[in-house]
């Protein structure tokens, strides 16, 4: 659930989706499922305006929609695979929901279309690279109404769209309220401390080349920057995200200019397995931020729906609480 949504264009995407996600109820507003059976409304996403059931009963999720939909209380009947590492980060009941669904393939481009059609879904929710959608679009839409988002979609707009299309807006509303509350709490508690501090967020993934790391400017750090107001480096307008560039360990020494370093840890607070080689280097240990206790491990289970983001905010809150006042 680490969609690499780019900062560049994310605000535009948010505005676009917020404005374009038009729901036109064609029937009554009654809460009874029976009343809504057969009724449709139109939803606008990256593949246009689609007529979908108001109360979908047989939902299939493909790609990055699976865990966010389950996080919002959805119960898909068919899913594509999720990595073991992602699955290990979600609550047990959500894992049970995932495992109860029919597995349709490892990824979007490997979906078993025959098996998918056999499930007779009334709605398909999909998020994966745009380049992979074009060859699948007609086949998916011939099976059921398909709502598709590309990977560049800003996460809040994506959550809104997913909740409305999949009819899980109640849970989303609660999550959004909790999110606002936590963000406000962090701003009020640490606002004065973080105002004058320069942060840098590092990351390293299982796919990273040995001896390299990245200054990550996408993922959970976008929430710290955009919603909380922390100052992290970001790519210049129109440039690729900083996180796309692998930097050799040799350049760790250049991080001395930052007051605070944030880096990825697991739920127990240990550096993530891919990042562990970084904290073992002598250069890391010699960094001023590290030696002065200003290297903060932050847990980011995902940034594509509110559930994992709330966990991230809890972790960030706890990490900032350890931050000594700037001398």
């Amino acid at each position: 659930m680490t969609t690499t949504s780019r900062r560049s264009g994310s605000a535009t995407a948010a505005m676009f989706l917020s404005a374009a996600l038009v729901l036109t109820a064609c029937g009554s507003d009654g809460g009874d499922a029976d009343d809504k059976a057969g009724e449709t409304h139109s939803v606008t996403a990256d593949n246009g305006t689609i007529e979908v059931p108001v109360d979908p009963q047989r939902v299939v999720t493909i790609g990055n929609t699976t865990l966010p939909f389950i996080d919002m209380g959805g119960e898909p009947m068919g899913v594509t695979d999720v990595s073991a590492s992602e699955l290990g980060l979600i609550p047990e009941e959500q894992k049970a929901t995932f495992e109860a669904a029919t597995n349709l393939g490892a990824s979007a481009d490997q979906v078993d279309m025959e098996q998918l059609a056999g499930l007779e879904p009334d709605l398909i929710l999909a998020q994966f690279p745009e380049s992979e959608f074009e060859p699948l679009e007609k086949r998916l839409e011939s099976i059921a109404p398909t709502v598709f988002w590309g990977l560049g979609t800003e996460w809040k707009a994506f959550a809104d769209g997913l909740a409305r299309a999949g009819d899980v807006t109640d849970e989303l509303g609660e999550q959004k309220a909790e999110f606002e509350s936590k963000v406000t709490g962090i701003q009020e508690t640490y606002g004065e401390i973080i105002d004058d501090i320069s942060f840098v967020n590092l990351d390293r993934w299982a796919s990273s080349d040995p001896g390299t790391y990245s200054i990550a400017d996408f993922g959970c750090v976008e929430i710290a920057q955009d919603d909380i107001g922390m100052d992290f480096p970001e790519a210049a307008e129109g440039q690729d995200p900083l996180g796309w560039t692998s930097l050799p360990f040799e350049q760790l020494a250049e991080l001395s200019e930052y007051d605070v370093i944030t880096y990825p840890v697991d739920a127990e607070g240990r550096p993530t397995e891919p990042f562990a080689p970084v904290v073992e280097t002598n250069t890391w240990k010699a960094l001023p931020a590290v030696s002065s206790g200003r290297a903060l491990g932050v847990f980011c289970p995902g940034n594509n729906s509110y559930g994992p983001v709330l966990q991230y905010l809890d972790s960030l809150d706890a990490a900032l609480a350890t931050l000594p006042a700037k001398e």
Partner: protein
Amino acid sequence: MTALVLRHDGPGTVTVPGPRRRLIGLVVALAALLVLLALSVMIGSTAIAPSVVWDALFHPSDDIDQFAIRDYRLPRTVVGLVVGAALGLSGALIQALTRNPLADPGILGVHAGASFAVTVAVGVLGVRDIGGYMWFAFAGALVVTITVLGLGSTRRGQSPVVLVLAGVCVGAVLGGAREALQLTDPDAFDALRSWNAGSVVGRPLDLVWPILPFFAVALVLAFAVSGPLNAMALGDELALAQGVRLVRTRVFAIVALTLLAGGATAIAGPIGFVGLMIPHVARWIVGPHQRWIFAYSVLLAPILLLASDILGRVVMHPSEIPVGVVTAFVGAPVLIVLVRRTKASGL
């Protein structure tokens, strides 16, 4: 070096430099290697003053820039030296053994065996760090080469042609199996994507030292068979007439090149062109004398590898290009030029 260029005095005649000139050339190559070693420690993606480099090596302290020298540049320089020498010598061995100027260590399945073993280690056994799967790569290279040796053996011994065919077949089978595994396991795909590029970055010296004894054994074996390989270049019958023990020579040569190429591939991943190109350059300089070709290859290959690595550190700043990518870009045109300029690189 220009003094050592072969001259074509007429049809069918090739003048090769004498022992003295070969020795001078070797000293020049050694000097060039020492310069490259120094440059490799001094040049990187971070600007560090030469005085800091000097202090890092001879007056160590906890200065953060000194760590960059001791922990990253020095190890990758040593890795470049060791891996380069191993690839160069293994390339010279395989070309002499198969009497094929287009042969490189991968032709006996070394790369295929190492890659397949790494895929199994990552995808099936869950090994994640390079220290873990390095030994799988080494074992994979050894096992596959021994298998190729077995498959390529006939009642009359090992024929170079049958050996190469066996290597190509086994390589194709393992390549298919590896791709199937990678397609079903994204983690294995990620690990192999990085490893397949061939790099000397992030290889701690602790992982390199255990491989060195294998290289030492291979070095002794290689020079031990250099004389018999000279005789075998004239054909098996003539070599037999000169008292060369063909089977023993081939087995020693294969063991040596497998240890060298397998070890180098285990440390750095598959790096192309070095093992193919450097023996051509060596042959171009010294003529068809295997012992000299081997000696030159041991010195020239690290020069190419270190120069390529230095180039890879600075051309895409702040990022770096894996040395395996650079050697392909640098090596291919150079090889074409060399082959077109002289027939001396032929066997």
